């Protein structure tokens, strides 16, 4: 299909994203979403973003050193992830894709837990649900339906919790995401769809995913609120997600949030983005870096200090060490666990297959 198909239509212009801090670190005129967060919270958001990036860097290093099978970097998306996750309560459920290192770290998952998947020790996410985080979901967009079901369960259980599904611009092309948005609206589910529009689904640009210029504009078509936010502005992401969560808690139903951000790195460590995008484009987004921007802002309001930077740096270093120590040379799980965790009680046939494998291994030993 040529691009002429698109040229015949005129999509409405995308609304300007909600922005509280401009890329140069100065406050914008936006008023509706401005909140007076205490300095500790402002510092916590900063610390979470920096730690996420540092850990992300360590993950890439470990992959390059052959300690991890693969890694999907979230570099550039720290503000979106931290802003969204930080605005929720610990009893609100997160349904990540696979790139949400920042969000799950903020929830208190350890580097070792996050790293287990990428080393290929185990699938999914071990102990994630203890922190109200679903295991990662690699089939694109499928987790949005789980988030809706969990939100409906919260209604049924009489909780005031909300669920938040992370998804990307590419995921919005999947049928499951359409079904999830529709179900959430029909059942008025307390569910937030947090789309990180990072402009690329592996090598396919967002313009090829959809003929509209804004994902958030689709929300009214489902009968829900939609909002477009600067995904590189942590305070804006925090504020719009907090508002969506409050609305959901009060019975106001789901919200579709489009956080406009950029995937600074490759899709995964196996990808080579120089084959499909220009250095100039990456440079434009480099100048909008979420962490540098927020640091400038914090300095201007007197929250950023050398002391804060030292504290953040020390924690980042500690977590990088913790990650490295938990990954390098980590023991593999027992192969018998593969068989023992398929069903609550192993079936007779599966037990026989497990014993066959164990006998094979005993012979080799």
């Amino acid at each position, binding site marked *: 299909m040529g691009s002429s198909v698109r040229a015949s239509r005129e999509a409405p212009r995308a609304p300007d994203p909600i922005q509280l801090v401009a890329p140069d670190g100065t406050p914008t005129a936006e008023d509706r979403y401005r909140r007076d967060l205490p300095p500790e919270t402002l510092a916590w958001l900063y610390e979470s973003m920096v730690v996420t990036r540092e850990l992300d860097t360590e993950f890439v290093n470990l992959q390059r050193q052959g300690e991890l099978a693969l890694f999907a970097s979230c570099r550039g998306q720290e503000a979106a992830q931290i802003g969204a996750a930080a605005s929720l309560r610990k009893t609100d459920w997160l349904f990540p894709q696979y790139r949400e290192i920042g969000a799950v770290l903020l929830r208190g998952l350890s580097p070792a837990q996050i790293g287990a998947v990428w080393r290929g020790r185990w699938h999914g996410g071990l102990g994630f649900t203890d922190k109200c985080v679903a295991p990662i979901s690699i089939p694109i967009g499928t987790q949005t339906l789980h988030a809706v079901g969990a939100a409906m369960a919260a209604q049924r259980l009489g909780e005031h919790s909300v669920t938040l599904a992370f998804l990307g611009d590419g995921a919005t092309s999947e049928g499951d995401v359409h079904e999830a948005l529709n179900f959430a609206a029909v059942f008025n589910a307390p569910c937030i769809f947090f789309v990180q529009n990072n402009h690329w689904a592996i090598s396919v640009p967002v313009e090829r995913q959809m003929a509209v210029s804004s994902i958030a504009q689709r929300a009214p078509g489902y009968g829900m609120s939609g909002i477009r936010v600067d995904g590189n502005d942590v305070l804006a992401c925090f504020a719009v997600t907090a508002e969506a969560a409050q609305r959901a808690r009060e019975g106001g139903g789901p919200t579709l949030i489009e956080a406009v951000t950029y995937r600074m790195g490759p899709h995964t460590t196996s990808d080579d983005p120089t084959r499909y995008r220009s250095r100039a484009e990456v440079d434009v987004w480099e100048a909008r870096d979420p962490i540098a921007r927020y640091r400038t802002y914090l300095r201007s309001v007197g929250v950023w200090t050398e002391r804060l930077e030292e504290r953040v740096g020390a924690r980042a270093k500690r977590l990088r060490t913790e990650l490295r120590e938990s990954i390098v040379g980590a023991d593999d799980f027992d192969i018998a666990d593969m068989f023992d965790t398929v069903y609550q009680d192993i079936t*007779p046939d599966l037990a026989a297959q497990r014993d066959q494998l164990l006998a094979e291994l005993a012979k080799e030993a």
Partner: protein
Amino acid sequence: MTQIIERPPLHDDDAPEPGRGLLTPVPQAPTLTLTMVAAINRALHDAMAADDRVLVFGEDVATLGGVFRVTEGLAETFGVDRCFDTPLAESAIIGIAIGMAIRGLRPVPEIQFDGFAAPAFDQIVSHLAKYRMRTRGDVDMPVTIRIPSFGGIGAVEHHSESTETYWLHTAGLKVVTPSTPPDAYWLLRHAIAGSDPVIYLEPKRRYWAREAVDTVTPGLPIGRAAIRRVGEHATVVAYGSLVATALNAADVAAERHGWSLEVVDLRSLNPLDFDTVAESVRRTGRAVVMHEGPRTLGFGAELAARISEELFYDLEAPVLRATGFDTPYPPARLEKLWLPGVDRLLDCVDRAMRQP
């Protein structure tokens, strides 16, 4: 969109036509004479009454009571919070069930017809089946998917499919199919009470079969087969709709040929009760496996391989298969010719009996 399907004329091997009164309320009594539809309805009702985490949802299940009336009365009795109609989207029906199960509920979603399970395939095989293993046992997945299944009712396209092979080839799912009203009741109760995902295939062709159902004494668990008829010359392994066909064939075989057929009803395809199959085949020395779905890589292929691997020296004849053909499911006017019936099964038995 699907319409309710009128009951077709009887097949030769069909169960006797039930009387009216399918939907009349049944009195509270341990043993009731129920159609399979009513037995499933009763099981849903009793499971919902026993545990308020049990939810029933799907297309047309609440106000209408299901296109086969299997869910009739549940919304009225338990409220639309616990039995509700969903938008028409099968992937979502299963996807939300997974999310609910993560939060500790026990959803019993319905896929309206076998052929419409296809849109839910990704949620079932990529998530539902794998969730426990991929969390290393952290998360239970107590989801029971009811699917009115198989052919023989004169339905339009996509309403007569055999889907069991897909589920059986997916680790993490349990797959059951009842052949009688009591089994329909108890297999469903066991499925809902368990902690693993269960695909519960309802043989539409036997929906109107009637039998006494004891709703107090628990029936055989999932993972156990039942010998429906004891015989000595050959073992017929069947499940779902075809158990009745096999029993009819056994009558004909005894009358016309003097062959005594043993009929094993698998009930539970995974976990498979191979011990019961093996014990029977050891005694008879001959095995014929039946299923409606296409022959290639159907469950019959697995059973035949397994019997050959483990019982080769007990066999008097090769394991044979009486199945559907490797075509798409036929139009209603042709399905009688296509489906494995008494004659196709007895042809197989004849071949097995003629072996030296």
